[in-house]
């Protein structure tokens, strides 16, 4: 399984895994997150010694998403019908290119020169910003973390906390360099600098682009979750609002948010609920004081129907993009987000990327896991994450992505294990090689950082045969 994405990953992962300072920053962030989440979980109907409320919340959420995803055509149609009835527009985008082209078309039609964007992994996924830039349209990321990434020219580091990997000092230096402001030690000052800069952008922008955390079928609304208020400003001030929404974001009823909003907040940041949870159902209505003249929803497929068709892994589409699996993953907390080389990182990213993109090129991410299962334990919608990593591995082998050498090795190993006699011979040879120090080259991946155990005098089976009179 050699390919350039794998080689790039090995390089980047090795670099980051060795970077102690980088790891310390991530782990400090995760430490704060863990404390916040522990507090956030107390909001559920748990009692000392039992987390039944939380577990029940997960089961309810899993049921809501199961219902939606397994009847997705019905809910998509209902959603579309309601958006149209409320004066909005719906565009169906089969691919990333289709979605990008439509945004450009809308921008052209409305004479758009400046766009304000709020955080949306979907827009990252379709590489929208590059396309806008190429068309000469200035698109400003308004979420503080994303804004910082944009002026640094980096992709976001984490699904929920885009600049988890940067210190205050890193950001202050970036602002000094790119915005010409004096260096400051204060997170408050840095935030106020960004606030002032971006205020002007909101007021002068022609179009606002957001994602959606949920798309509600029975009311034809999208739900946008945030803490800063930049999404609200993005869909309130410009004259056109475009929302790019993955088809898996659907939920059946407005009332489902009474569970999903607190659940998303508890897992994502440890909050009871985020500062702003908004529902947008259409353009400005007749009696309303302000708002966009047009509201466009772009429903994005881009490989999601492929994942839908994989019945075994379909529940990966239940993901509410909380980031909990990333935060709990010991691989992620040691290599960080950028090393994955994908839009969606951590356990969920490793599971879905072979479905959304080329499976042969991205299956290696499913192997870059010790299968500890912590992700499955924390997922608020009960996605069977680490089992899907196993499924991806099985699929990779079945499709012949494993490479000749590995296949031959496992064939040989298997042939040996099927017979106690062959096993005994192989064991003797192995023990001999270890004692004579002949296995050095083979053991190198292990011994680069660790000692290998000294081979024992006698195996268990030989000891038992020697010391036990009866079988």
């Amino acid at each position: 399984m050699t390919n350039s994405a794998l080689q790039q990953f090995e390089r980047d992962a090795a670099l980051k895994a060795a970077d102690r300072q980088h790891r310390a920053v991530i782990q400090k962030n995760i430490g704060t997150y863990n404390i916040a989440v522990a507090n956030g979980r107390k909001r559920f109907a748990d009692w000392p010694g039992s987390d039944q409320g939380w577990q029940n919340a997960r089961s309810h959420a899993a049921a809501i998403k199961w219902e939606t995803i397994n009847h997705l055509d019905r809910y998509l149609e209902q959603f579309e019908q309601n958006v149209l009835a409320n004066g909005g527009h719906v565009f169906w985008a089969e691919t990333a290119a289709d979605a990008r082209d439509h945004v450009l078309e809308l921008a052209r039609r409305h004479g758009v020169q400046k766009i304000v964007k709020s955080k949306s992994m979907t827009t990252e996924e379709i590489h929208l910003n590059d396309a806008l830039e190429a068309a000469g349209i200035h698109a400003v990321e308004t979420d503080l973390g994303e804004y910082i990434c944009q002026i640094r020219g980096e992709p976001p580091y984490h699904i929920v906390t885009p600049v988890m990997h940067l210190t205050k000092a890193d950001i202050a230096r970036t602002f000094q360099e790119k915005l010409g402001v004096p260096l400051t030690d204060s997170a408050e000052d840095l935030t106020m600098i960004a606030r002032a800069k971006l205020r002007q952008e909101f007021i002068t922008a022609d179009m606002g682009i957001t994602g959606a955390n949920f798309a509600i079928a029975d009311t034809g609304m999208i739900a946008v979750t945030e803490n800063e208020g930049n999404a609200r400003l993005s869909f309130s001030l410009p004259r056109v609002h475009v929302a790019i929404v993955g088809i898996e974001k659907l939920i059946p009823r407005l009332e489902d948010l009474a569970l999903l909003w607190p659940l998303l907040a508890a897992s994502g940041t440890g909050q009871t609920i985020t500062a702003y949870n908004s529902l947008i159902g259409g353009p400005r209505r007749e009696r309303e004081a302000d708002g966009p003249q047009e509201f466009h929803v772009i429903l994005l497929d881009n490989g999601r129907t492929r994942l839908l068709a994989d019945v075994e892994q379909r529940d990966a589409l239940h993901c509410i993009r909380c980031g909990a699996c990333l935060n709990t993953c010991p691989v992620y907390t040691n290599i960080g987000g950028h090393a994955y080389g994908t839009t969606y990182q951590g356990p969920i990213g490793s599971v879905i990327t072979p479905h959304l993109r080329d499976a042969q090129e991205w299956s290696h991410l499913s192997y870059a896991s010790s299968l500890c299962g912590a992700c499955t334990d924390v997922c608020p919608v009960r996605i069977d994450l680490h089992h899907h990593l196993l499924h991806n591995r099985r699929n990779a082998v079945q499709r012949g992505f494993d490479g000749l050498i590995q296949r031959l090795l496992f064939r040989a190993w298997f042939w040996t294990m099927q017979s106690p006699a062959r096993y005994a011979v192989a064991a003797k040879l192995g023990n001999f090689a270890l004692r004579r120090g002949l296995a050095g080259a083979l053991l190198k991946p292990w011994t680069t950082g660790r000692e290998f155990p000294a081979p024992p005098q006698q195996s268990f089976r030989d000891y038992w045969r020697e010391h036990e009179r009866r079988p």
Partner: protein
Amino acid sequence: MNVARDNILGRVRAALKVEAHRPVAPTDAPVFPPIADPETRFRAEFAALRGEIIENAQALRAFVGGFARIATDGAELTSQFVGEPNASVRDCDLGVTGCDCLVAQTGSIIVSTLSAGGRAMSVLPPVHLVMARREQIVADLASAFTLLRTRYDKHWPSAISVITGPSRTADIEKILVMGAHGPKRLALCFAD
């Protein structure tokens, strides 16, 4: 004739010919603990979020008096207790609005384009003051949705926001900073 739509729905339907394994069913047990006294709970949550409660008419006068440029949503409650605006939403120091309801469970204030004078009035000003009545307090989000449905079904406002505290970010080293883009301060005055 929408080819993309037909293709996507076609692929969805083909995929769904087989149902996926159902997850373990939830129980009837409550997910959230019950709320005995909504007003007390609301006040506690709101205060924990750094929301400011203005307790009486005198305090309200003092609060509003500290701002030179005031924009309002022009609603009855606002006019009655705060008066007329002297600035636009884009040029004000303080924005005053009403609300749809208050949620005890989370300490939230729910506003809509119809209850808060549009979209910008409750997010653009640097300080946001909400005029409300105690009777507008509901226990939890579920009750809030019931209220909104009753009030707005068939003629929904184009935007609704559930506001829970002032604007905030922790993007920089997880240090909490208020007033990222939305209001830095959120105040609430009970008119009753």
